[in-house]
């Protein structure tokens, strides 16, 4: 049995983590500014923080969701419920890969019925993770609306899905990998592009 990483972006690769190859596209400062802007956009679009629920997609989406909730508390002085949504068992490629480890799903006590759910992930790529997340949400309740916030949109969509809030649009080659590292998981805040032709 293996424990593969299954981030859409292929963002964690322990073997190459130490070497930190590739080039940095977002620094710690860029990340924090992007998140602050996303938090403002969420409040503006929602006209306040009422009925909001933030759900992070493991693993790095969880950390980002937690950060956004702290920022929302600063901006609106509101405690927005936050949880995590594991989508492993809703993926459409389960049959083509070895069994994946299942992450945690924790939904705030308030539930998601009639709430505005904001899904939070680190990288938006093919869109298949988001599709799985929408399926998973369907089994958990019926939100009034679902929105999507991502730190990086790298393109190459395979499904008609787009993000409502994007930290940075990052044109990439398919052969490249976008690696998001966050303080909570990796001890450092940065986004790098690895591989490709260069």
């Amino acid at each position, binding site marked *: *049995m293996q424990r593969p990483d299954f981030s859409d972006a292929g963002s964690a690769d322990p073997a190459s983590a130490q070497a930190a190859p590739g080039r940095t596209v977002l620094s710690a400062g860029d990340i924090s500014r992007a998140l602050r802007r996303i938090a403002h956009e969420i409040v503006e679009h929602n006209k306040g923080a009422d009925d909001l629920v933030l759900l992070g997609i493991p693993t790095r989406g969880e950390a980002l969701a937690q950060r956004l909730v702290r920022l929302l508390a600063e901006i609106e002085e509101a405690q927005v419920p936050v949880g995590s949504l594991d989508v492993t*068992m*809703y993926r459409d490629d389960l049959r083509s*890969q*070895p*069994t994946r*480890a*299942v*992450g945690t799903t924790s939904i705030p006590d308030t539930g998601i019925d009639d709430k505005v759910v904001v899904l939070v992930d680190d990288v938006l790529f093919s869109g298949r993770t988001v599709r799985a997340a929408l*399926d998973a949400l369907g089994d958990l309740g019926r939100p009034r609306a679902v929105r999507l916030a991502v730190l990086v949109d790298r393109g190459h969509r395979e499904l008609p899905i787009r993000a409502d809030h994007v930290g940075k649009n990052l044109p990439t080659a398919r052969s490249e990998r976008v690696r998001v590292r966050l303080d909570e998981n990796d001890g450092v805040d940065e986004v790098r592009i690895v591989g490709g032709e260069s």
Partner: protein
Amino acid sequence: MKHLLSAANLSRDDALQILDTAAQMHDVQRREVKKLPVLRGRTIVNLFFEDSTRTRSSFEIAGKWLSADVINVSAKGSSVSKGESLRDTAMTVAAMGVDGLVIRHHASGAPLQVTQWVDAMVVNAGDGTHEHPTQALLDAYTMQQRLGDLAGKRVAIVGDLTHSRVVRSNLILLRTLGADVTLVAPPTLMPSGIANWSAAEGFSYGYDFDEVLPDLDAVMMLRVQKERMSGGYFPTPREYTVGYGLTRDRLRALPDHAVICHPGPMNRGLEITADAADEARSLILDQVSAGVAVRMSVLYHLLGGAEA
């Protein structure tokens, strides 16, 4: 890992991963919609040559909640009662394009034998007096939920060891997870070759329940399997209870934090008193509820991904 035939098939990492996943599956059980799309399009046959409502229905629910198509075949009323062999039954079922077989059989080793004949994934749901690995997993899961990491925890398994298939799987798995295990039974119900049990080195066994009682973190009482006993293994039920039952006095001697398990069905008043069975420290109903979650986890790990 293609099949789950014995607790010995599981490395420590495998076992921990199955238990972790079981915890997530347990959350699904508390949802309004208890359904995951993981095994959509897969077919599982529960092939039960022995009666077992509890295990069979929990495998059935587990498969259905993972969106598999589940069919139950019991020996009674099927071609088995017309004299068909295990091999023919298994091959007939497999020829229908089944992805997984869950097998309960009165002969030790039957599920292993079936893996030689068919391509489908096989789970041992109890074979003779040999093993019952998913029961061991759910016991470990239940204990772990209450006691935390089982490494270094002291567990006694008490009672009819000779006729139990639970004991062997439990012993192997608990040792894999790092628990200290003591087996306790009257001499007549102690398996004759126990000194040679090599599958799980580092366990101890004895005949005195009261001696081990005060040091335990968990005690697992086994059912006295009257239906499997042909001779007199103990003079009277009363005498068995005095020597090996979890009585009110023993309950007092058990540390407060220690938990009580029983794989069921219980003989109340024989191996366990009603007091002990209904105590707050008793995890017997938790074990039943964990059964579905653990079996979901096992089916997910065996059938959820591509074949390795």
